[in-house]
């Protein structure tokens, strides 16, 4: 790192990279750049001075001088902090590659790397020596590193990560993550893609995230500090929801201005803003309860529906059954044992029919929607109380 044996301290002051005057009692940690115009006289003077300095100092280089101690401390801190940062970036974020690129002077720093290559090795070494003297062997760097380390610890104690991976499927999906009703961002996930989203949180009140992958029910997840919550699409996003499937007769009755009202465990549903969810006009489509409208009906269900229809009406009916509407703009959790009351109301608010549905637990190897067929109320004399 030092070159004091080769390059005596110049006094010319002509170069911007000249070494600052050093205390004679402390060996200089830095050296000036070798200057070609230095004459032989200067060289002799420098050599003489150097021999004097060497004779007065012992041990010469790795003595436990304060600067060396500072350097060792700083180096230790730098190694620890940098390694810790790299590990953190690697585990909690998907920005490590970018970070590594910066360290390797890639990307936007390529020009800098190019310029540095243009410089002669001697100047580079002199630059490094100056950096060593001005930065690495200074207590202020120690202080800065300690502060940064403390800041990092604090930050780590308040950061968690949501990791979403498109594990199965061959379609692109859009991931939306919101916190406290504010949209964070959207990510496009190709098959095999993975995204890690750091979230500011606390151990007292873990942050509640709303995560939505296009085509699947939305999720509400609490992220704790230092947690990396890994969600795989589709398994993690297939929670229990109810799918109301209208019969052909009921689809035909969509022109009768029927409205759907849903109660959960006897209570009127509330939206994100806390206001009651309005009635949904019935337009002949299936209806999600517990999911938003942007949820696909599993292909197995669609095929079963198609096969169960008479051929004469298959096309017409399936044109209504392909895509479902939703009671609410965002989903809500349904738990096993919940009672969902579905009412179809007429124009005059009279009950056309009422159906009480008990939410069942999800079964392995079954589709996530709990399918419930709804028909016109022929013969329903005593609708259930909800």
């Amino acid at each position, binding site marked *: 790192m030092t070159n004091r044996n080769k390059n005596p301290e110049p006094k010319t002051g002509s170069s911007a990279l000249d070494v600052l005057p050093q205390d004679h009692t402390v060996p200089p940690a830095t050296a000036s750049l070798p200057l070609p115009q230095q004459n032989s006289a200067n060289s002799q003077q420098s050599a003489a001075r150097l021999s004097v300095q060497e004779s007065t100092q012992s041990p010469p280089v790795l003595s436990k001088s304060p600067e060396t101690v500072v350097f060792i401390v700083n180096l230790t801190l730098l190694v620890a902090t940098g390694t810790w940062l790299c590990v953190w970036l690697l585990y909690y974020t998907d920005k490590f590659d970018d970070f590594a690129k910066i360290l390797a002077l890639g990307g936007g720093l390529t020009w800098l790397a190019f310029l540095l290559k243009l410089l002669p090795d001697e100047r580079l070494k002199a630059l490094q020596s100056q950096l060593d003297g001005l930065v690495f062997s200074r207590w202020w760097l120690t202080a800065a590193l300690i502060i940064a380390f403390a800041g990092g610890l604090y930050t780590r104690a308040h950061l968690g990560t949501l990791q979403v991976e498109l594990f199965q499927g061959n379609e692109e999906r859009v991931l939306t993550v919101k916190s406290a009703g504010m949209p964070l961002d959207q990510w496009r996930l190709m098959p095999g893609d993975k995204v890690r989203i750091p979230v500011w949180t606390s151990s007292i009140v873990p942050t509640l995230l709303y995560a939505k992958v296009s085509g699947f029910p939305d999720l509400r997840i609490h992220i704790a500090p230092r947690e990396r919550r890994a969600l795989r699409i589709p398994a993690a996003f297939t929670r229990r929801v109810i799918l109301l499937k209208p019969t052909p007769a009921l689809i035909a*009755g969509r022109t009768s201005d029927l409205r759907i009202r849903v109660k959960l465990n006897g209570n009127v549903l509330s939206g994100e803003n806390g206001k009651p969810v309005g009635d949904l006009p019935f337009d002949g489509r299936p209806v999600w309860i517990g999911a938003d409208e942007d949820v696909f009906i599993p292909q197995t269900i669609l095929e079963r529906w198609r096969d169960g229809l008479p051929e004469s009406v298959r096309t017409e009916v399936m044109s209504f059954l392909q895509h479902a509407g939703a009671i609410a703009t965002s989903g809500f959790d349904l738990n096993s044992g919940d009672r969902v009351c579905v009412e179809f109301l007429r124009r005059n608010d009279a009950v*056309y029919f009422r159906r009480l549905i008990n939410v069942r637990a999800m079964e392995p190897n079954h589709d996530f929607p709990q399918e419930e067929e709804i028909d016109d109320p*022929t013969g329903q004399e005593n609708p259930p109380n909800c």
Partner: protein
Amino acid sequence: MTQRGKKTLRIAEVSLCICLAMIAERVAEAQQGQALPVAVSFDFTAPQVVSFFDDAAQRKQIEQQINSQFITRLQLRFHYWTFTPVSPDVKVTLKLGLRDADADTISLWAALFSGAREIARWEKVVFPPGDLIRLGMPTGKQWLATFPVVFDDGLLHKHSQEILDALKGSAPVGKDITLMPSAADPDVLPRAVLALDSSQYDDLQDCEFRLRYDWSAGGKVTIHSSGISMHAPFAPATPPFDGIVVQLEQWQQGNDTQKIGLMRNHLLELTPVGFYLEAIKGPGSD
């Protein structure tokens, strides 16, 4: 209630009865010379359709309007009878309704009843498979626009002769018949005047009729007769009108058929029950 109050109430009751009697007489006068009624009744009998009406009152209102449409069309095509809404004293009824054959097919059916006995039934698909899904269940006013076409094309036009035959067989055109005085010439067949206003039913003046009587000797007698393009005053009517004159041709009781000349002496022993249209014929047709 005081004695005076009771008296006042009694007077009011009597006055009301007199008024009702006068109205009934007026109605009866207006109906004299008219063909007998055939009741028409339409109900949305298909449960699937019925369920989509907001309430029963709304459905009844639509049903009445559709019934009126059917009556108008039946009257235009089969004016030999008077088609009316259902009333208790009308024996023959044409009932119409909807049937959801499958969940996706709606048919209009019509059945002719004599009392409780079904005479004949016809059916026409209103919404073939897929149509109801594609178009949606009609609302009240849409039903009013849907039925006339289906009824005209699908039932009245397609099954016109069948309906006519069923009506001829079961629905009397009229009830009252008066025998005309016997002609001096024994070769002239006895004649009768049917209580049908010839000015309204002039196209029936050459038709064949089946006259039904109670015979004092027991049982019922059917006399087959033919119009002779003649009309004569129907005497019992007030005010009188010209009825259609038919000549009596055959006497039938059970399977025993006689020429009318042989039974001429028994004609006065008959009490008319009603007469039926047997064959529609124009002037000079066989």
